[in-house]
């Protein structure tokens, strides 16, 4: 028996367990590419129409940070540009979910132990997860390329574009494999891998929107950057497509080496004994929630500070990015360079709003996992009531979201003031701009809280779907013409564009009230329903 014995059987099992999930992911991502080609073809049928769009919107730094650079003005280039970031995020998330599900999550629940007592090698589960994830990416890549060709895009470019998305998926397959060795729970492994994905997206956003002498190389660090750096519909750089397979081989090898160095169900971080007594403050549901969430929040706020400093210090030179004289004129008409750097910062801060919403949703849903994993029962069987227990976690969600946004604003302000001057007033302005995202992020958290109280079984899938729709609206809304009422669904549409835009308090107050009402509805539901 070698370390791979049983891989075939485990791969079949994994494929069977995932059959619906895989079909949905592959179908949705292929449809996403097909819809983009179709939509862009209808919107900009001629080269002239596309050229006009590119000169007005294609050099907007906000768009550059969202979508990356644009190579060429063909329908293919436009498609590749539009889909690069989201396509890479899609394949990356799919790969992370597949790999963690069949490695660390199974190990944590003990299912793998049952399997491991049969003649199954040490690396069999890891390799079978990698096989399923890589296979899914290859099938997805082939279907995406076929869809693009079917809608009339050139074959070579379509293949290069689809290979770029699949390559990003492969890279995150490797990232997830390593994360599954380092972290000790499925939740932590997914969190770690998604953290890398978010960091990669932000690096790419900063790299792509950097000025001529700015840190463009940052884009190369991000797998979703590769999907655009291969210049699929321009002069294709085929060698870029090697990066994905190379990344998965290197990372998978690292994961296999790490797997040998640890025990079953153990992470790589050593177990240390802890305090024999609970801290004197550990005596309320809020203290419990804080204790459960503080490490995560610390990681998020440090990331937020770093991100803020990077975007703040890159904002000053943003004007140099604009190539054509025509677009410079537009900028000046819009209010000059300060307006431009404001627009850039406003776009990047609205990402932060979405990311903070993601954080808030994950904190609120902790209530649900505490419930389903039966850790809520012992707490609720004490003097702690349901409402107090839920409010403990909701308070952390609110405070953490505000902290992440304020600290991003602070970092941005410090970075900006350092490069462009302006001192304390710049810092204060950007802290407020960060904080202004909070009401919209909290509305999403409020939806999660309402689902938890009123429709607990749907709360996990429902909350993440809501966030996904909001993200999609931000990305689509920026280029494809969508009716305003559709965009208005997203709370982020109603925020003032800060910094730079006019400050209106009314939407902020309304959104905050909506968030509070949603949370109250959730708590009322929680009072009435059964636990589990």
């Amino acid at each position, binding site marked *: 028996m070698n370390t791979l014995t049983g891989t075939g059987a485990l791969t079949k099992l994994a494929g069977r367990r995932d059959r619906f999930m895989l079909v949905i992911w592959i179908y949705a991502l292929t449809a996403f590419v097909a819809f983009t080609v179709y939509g862009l073809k209808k919107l900009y049928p001629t080269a002239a129409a596309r050229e006009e769009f590119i000169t007005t919107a294609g050099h907007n730094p906000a768009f550059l940070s969202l979508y990356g650079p644009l190579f060429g003005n063909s329908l293919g280039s436009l498609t590749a540009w539009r889909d690069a970031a989201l396509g890479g995020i899609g394949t990356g998330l799919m790969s992370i979910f597949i790999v963690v599900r069949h490695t660390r999550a199974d190990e944590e629940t003990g299912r793998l132990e049952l399997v491991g007592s049969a003649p199954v090698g040490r690396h069999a589960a890891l390799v079978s997860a990698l096989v399923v994830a890589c296979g899914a990416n290859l099938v997805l890549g082939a279907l995406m390329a076929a869809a693009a060709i079917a809608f009339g895009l050139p074959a070579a470019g379509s293949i290069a574009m689809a290979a770029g998305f699949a390559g990003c998926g492969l890279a995150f397959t490797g990232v997830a494999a390593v994360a599954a060795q380092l972290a000790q729970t499925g939740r932590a492994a997914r969190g770690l891998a998604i953290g890398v994905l978010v960091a990669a997206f932000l690096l790419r956003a900063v790299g792509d929107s950097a000025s001529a002498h700015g840190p463009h190389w940052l884009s190369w660090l991000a797998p979703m950057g590769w999907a655009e750096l291969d210049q699929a519909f321009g002069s294709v750089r085929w060698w870029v497509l090697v990066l994905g397979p190379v990344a998965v081989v290197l990372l998978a090898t690292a994961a296999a080496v790490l797997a040998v160095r640890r025990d079953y169900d153990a992470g790589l971080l050593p177990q240390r004994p802890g305090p024999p007594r609970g801290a004197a403050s550990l005596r309320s549901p809020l203290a419990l929630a804080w204790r459960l969430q503080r490490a995560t929040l610390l990681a998020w706020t440090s990331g937020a500070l770093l991100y803020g400093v990077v975007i703040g210090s890159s904002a000053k030179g943003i004007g140099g990015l604009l190539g054509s004289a025509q677009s410079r004129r537009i900028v000046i008409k819009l209010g000059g360079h300060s307006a431009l750097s404001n627009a850039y910062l406003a776009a990047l801060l609205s990402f932060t709003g979405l990311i903070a919403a993601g954080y808030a949703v994950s904190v609120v849903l902790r209530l649900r996992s505490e419930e389903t994993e039966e850790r809520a029962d*012992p707490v*609720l069987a004490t003097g702690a*009531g349901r409402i107090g227990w839920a409010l403990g976690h909701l308070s952390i969600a609110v405070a953490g979201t505000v902290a992440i946004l304020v600290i991003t604003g602070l970092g941005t302000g410090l970075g900006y003031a350092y490069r462009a001057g302006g001192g304390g007033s710049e810092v204060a302005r950007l802290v407020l701009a960060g904080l202004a995202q909070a009401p919209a992020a909290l509305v999403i958290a409020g939806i999660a809280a309402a689902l938890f109280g009123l429709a607990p079984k749907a709360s996990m899938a429902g909350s993440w779907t809501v966030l996904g729709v909001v993200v999609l609206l931000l990305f689509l809304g920026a280029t494809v013409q969508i009716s305003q009422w559709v965009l208005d669904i997203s709370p982020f549409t109603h925020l003032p564009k800060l910094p730079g835009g006019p400050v209106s308090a009314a939407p902020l107050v309304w959104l905050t009230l909506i968030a509070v009402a949603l949370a109250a509805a959730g708590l009322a539901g929680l009072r009435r329903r059964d636990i589990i």
Partner: protein
Amino acid sequence: MTEAIDVAGLRKSYGKTLALDGLDLTVTRGEVHGFLGPNGAGKTTTIRILLGLLRADGGTIRLLGGDPWREATALHRRLAYVPGDVSLWPNFTGGEVIDLLGRLRGGIDAGRRASLLERFELDPTIKARAYSKGNRQKVALIAALASDVELLLLDEPTAGLDPLMEASFRGCIEEERQRGRTVLLSSHILSEVEALCDRVTIIRLGKAVETGSLAELRHLTRTSISAELARAPDGLDRLPGVHGLDVEGNRVRCEVDTDQLDGLLRQLSAAGVRTLTSQPPTLEELFLRHYAGDGPGEHGAVAANRGGGQA
């Protein structure tokens, strides 16, 4: 108010699955009450309703004189609960969990906490993710036993404990009884219930099928008799309460309802007893009779068994 728990006609269903079908349960203050039934009989559902975690569909429930759904928080300060499958926060130490749960309940006795840690041989500095099932259960037990409460609700608390620890557990429950605390002990380990409990309720398919003290329940059971006689016996088949009679010459085997034992013995002595073996009824026998041949949905079996037992 002498009843710690007074439940009548309790009903609860999950969708189409009927979990509790008119359950009655009465636990008097100061007693250790065994709550017996196999997995899926409705024990955990009952306890979760008593804790106010689930809302009953019907029936009346009084817990320590209050309504567990409406007055959950106030009542919870007066009781402690140990779930059957204890799951803890992986990065908390056992000591932290014990303190947290104890404080949320309104305070913990430091001396008692220390002595329980020693008795159950639990290292409180280990993180919960490294504890075995038995050790996680000890954490919950210590947190419950070290709290100053009137009522203990224990849902299969010894499932993961080794025999030594089970002995410690029995010692602790004995002490709780002497302190005058009420204990509801759900279990399917019959020897444990026989050793600890004053009264027992047996539930089956969401209904209480027997309830009473062990002595009372034993009356409902049969004693197995096997005897060798001086001559062939006479008239045994006409005696009330004799079952499964098997006479081979001078040898007799049968089962007899315990309250009819006297009549049988008189008849046997009349035939001259050479050897006599009698096996007293066990809780296990009683239990098995209620569940023998139990399959899903065989409601009729209860009535049939019951009729047989009391004939």
